[in-house]
């Protein structure tokens, strides 16, 4: 931990090919994720545009948003990879605190 050095290691041909293939598979996953996100967005807009009851649509689109954000965090922002314990901990703590703020502002600001 003391010294700020990085040891350069060359991959052999097999390792290199493997790593490349692996990355390209990950990229395919990302495109699938993207397609899901577009799909969820489309559903959300369509549900609202169709003018269904707010009591029904409200929770559904919030859920869709939450799913989309999780996809964004875990795939686009690589939180599914190793070494993201601290980022996840702090992000979720922030989200938890933020959630309590929103709840209070919705309940006890007006009376």
């Amino acid at each position: 931990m003391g010294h700020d050095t990085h040891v350069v290691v060359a991959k052999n041909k097999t390792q290199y090919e493997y790593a490349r293939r692996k990355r390209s598979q990950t990229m395919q996953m990302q495109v699938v994720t993207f397609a899901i996100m577009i799909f969820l967005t489309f559903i959300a807009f369509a549900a609202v545009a169709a003018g269904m009851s707010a009591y029904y649509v409200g929770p559904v689109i919030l859920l869709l948003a939450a799913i989309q954000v999780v996809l964004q965090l875990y795939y686009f922002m690589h939180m599914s990879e190793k070494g993201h314990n601290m980022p996840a901990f702090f992000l979720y703590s922030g989200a938890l605190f933020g959630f309590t703020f929103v709840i209070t502002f919705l309940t006890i600001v007006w009376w």
Partner: protein
Amino acid sequence: MSAIAQKKGFGSALWDWLTTVDHKKIAILYLASGGFFFVVGGIEAMLIRIQLAVPDNSFLSAGLYNEILTMHGTTMIFLAAMPILFGYMNAVVPLQIGARDVAFPFLNSLGFWLFFFGGIFLNLSWFMGGAPDAGWTSYASLSLYSPGHGIDFYALGLQISGAGTYIAGINFLVTIINMRAPGMTYMRMPLFTWTTFVASALILFAFPPLTIGLFFLIFDRMFGANFFDHTMGGNTIIWEHLFWIFGHPEVYILILPAFGIFSEIFAIFSRKRLFGYSAMVFATVLIGFLGFMVWAHHMFTVGLGPTANAIFAVATMAIAVPTGVKIFNWLLTIWGGSIKVTTPMLYALGFIPSFVAGGVTGVMQAAAPLDYQLHDSYFIVAHFHYVIVGGVVLAILAGLHLYWPLMFNTMLSEKLGKITFWFFFLGFHATFFIQHFLGLMGMPRRVYTFIEGQGWDLFNFISSMGAILMAIGVIVLVINIVMTTVKNVPVGNDPWKDGRTLEWAIPQPVPFYNFKRTPLVRGLDTFWIEKQEGNKEGMSYAEPLSDIHMPNNSFIPFVMSLGLFIAAFGALYNGEKAWAVPVLVIGLGITLASMATRSLKDDHGYHIHKEDLMDHKGGNY
């Protein structure tokens, strides 16, 4: 490049301080400017007590009293207590965890200069048409309609210094997570490092709501927004929520490092391992977490409704549990220890009863029905001074004595230190204990004077006399500092002889690269373990001697902060002076340009070579 310093002229010494990115020097900068603002806030406190010493006093006018009261609170919290604690964190934490510096030395310097310029900006209000006068909480309905620019100085100044605090918070978090020496597991971290860690996490989550609240205030006052104006659909309660969402964690941002300092002191001077280490860590984290869930207890009388009041009351009382755990662990650390009553230990011993008193009145106020009686009375004033002065300020003074040898390689006089303690401690209780009764007798807080014959005269007079004792204590401390600096007697290694953690194992004065070789941490209180095993060097090492990578000094943080300082004047006079908008643009331009400069240049730092390290012993100042 050998960076071992030669004798320097004044100019180059000044330049060195302006551009330094060394955590030890930034610590001194924080301590010095925090100390300056502490004195300023103290003078304001004295003016308040002079005004209230006798009934119907006309020493200060009502308006001026409001300004002084506001500035006293704001200065003490934002510009004195927090920066001084940052000073200790900077000086101690990297050494305690075996790091060569903080994670982001450049940002460390930026954080300091932002705080510094924010503080100066806030205090310039005295000379530019009047200071803020709506209390340190600056509640919106009142602050919106405060004439003049006082509140604008408050909002903009805190915005700038708040940005600095936020940066410092992230910096410490990353430092503690990423830069611990091999063997320094989380559960071997000294308590001061743990409390710094939790306090920094609180900063990370508490300062953004303040930023937002201050922006709303700035936009409402200067740019025509309507967040708090009820005639336009706004709501002033939003300010109160945002302020206390920040404000309550802020109290823990101050008190947790104070707990950390006392935990170190009790262990060192009882010459015993801290009792219940893991319970202490757990309590610290729990206090930090609960600290975010209780903010509305400052607003019981707003009319949130019985359900909300009950929830926040229960959450508040829950905090007493981990705090109680801490108190008992400290007592049990002293129990059976071989106690040395040095000045820091004296402060620590004085801290326990003082803070417990403050804590108990806190639980009283947590009971919402009782709070309706106590609210806005001197009881509240007494309570928060018992926790802030009895907790934080005693820790600051204790830490000053404890860490002075580490920061300056000299020892403050123990004799004068004890004189300071007794003056300050007795003065503190004389000033504030009696205010509990003033509150119960109905004296409201934040009044500039009172009519005689209500039974408040004698108690107020006693309170003011106590404040004079505190002032004498601080003057003795200043004399102590001056004398120690003039005498300049170096103390050398392990100045307290009973150091337990890594920072005391380092040669004095601390070399600018801290550790020649990264140490190996072999347990909690690693230095103590090494000493017990007769290791003369005091450290085991985790690596052979090799080149050390160091960051370059930089003037950019200073310029970046200066830009915001200039821009703040533009925002302040927006719509009033013709030059306002150009100044705003130029200021922001300076900041952005210096950011771009920093970004475009590759700054890889430099290396100290192995050969230069071999026979280098001391530090560079």
